[in-house]
């Protein structure tokens, strides 16, 4: 009952707060209200 997939974060994105706006595309069987989900973008520390 979960919908999922990869969300690509570009290399030049600033680390910190961001938002993922989730909705169904136009023409979907169901109506949705766009939902803004706060996320945090983090940069992985390089391996030593």
């Amino acid at each position, binding site marked *: 009952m979960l919908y999922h997939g990869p969300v690509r974060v*570009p290399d030049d994105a600033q680390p910190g707060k961001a938002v*993922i706006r989730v909705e*169904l595309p136009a023409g979907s069987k169901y109506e*949705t209200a766009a939902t803004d989900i706060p*996320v945090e973008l983090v940069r992985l520390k390089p391996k030593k």
Partner: protein
Amino acid sequence: MPPMLEGLAAALAYLVVVFPPGPPADMPDLSKVDRSLKAEPVYVTEQPLYGLAVFGPKAEARVWMVLDKTKPDADSYDVLHVDLDADGDLTGKGERLTRGKDDRFHVGDYKDPATGAEHAAFSIRVAIEAKPKTVMLSLRWRGQFKLGGGYPVDPEAGYMQFAQKPADAPVLWVHGDGPFRFQRWYGAKLTVGGADDFKVFLGQPGRGPSTFCAAQEHILPKEEYVKATLVYRDGMGKEQRLVCELKERC
């Protein structure tokens, strides 16, 4: 305007656009749900636990659920008082349920007294072994698909727990007609330069921790996907958007 204030104004404008204050106009304000109860039974347990389910597009039907015990020293909550006619009186006929062997309190078919919508297989399950006790409501919305909650955003937070007093009770918004909203499952942090898996529930948000009420089966046609737009700032501080398609299901 000084540059610092300009930056602050821009940040505030961004917040207002991305996080508008208050609930959208097309959903009820669950912070204003009437939490009064007209009549309660004499509880056997010293500590009844309260939860509230509100039904329909305007959340008009308020169905209180209160966990109780058959004996004061019973190990677990084995009685549920549920205000099925949503009149605020928990002492009505047929509103005291005992727990089944499957740890569920079974209501069965249920008609929303406010809208007349009819649902099937309405049940409330208490996780007897869990500490603290968690509760999950489930039904077949209009007899068509399973809908229930409450789900947390992170499993570590635990599923829905009933509260010790009505004022603190979690509120589930049980509404399967849409428009639907989404809640993430894990995925609070995403890696810059990566492509992390992002999972969402489809359903309705509630009020209180772990109160999302989700479709418990995949109701979207197979060819449909969920659109996820990442709104972020690039290295120059400029807002950018990147659209991704959530095509997987689990």
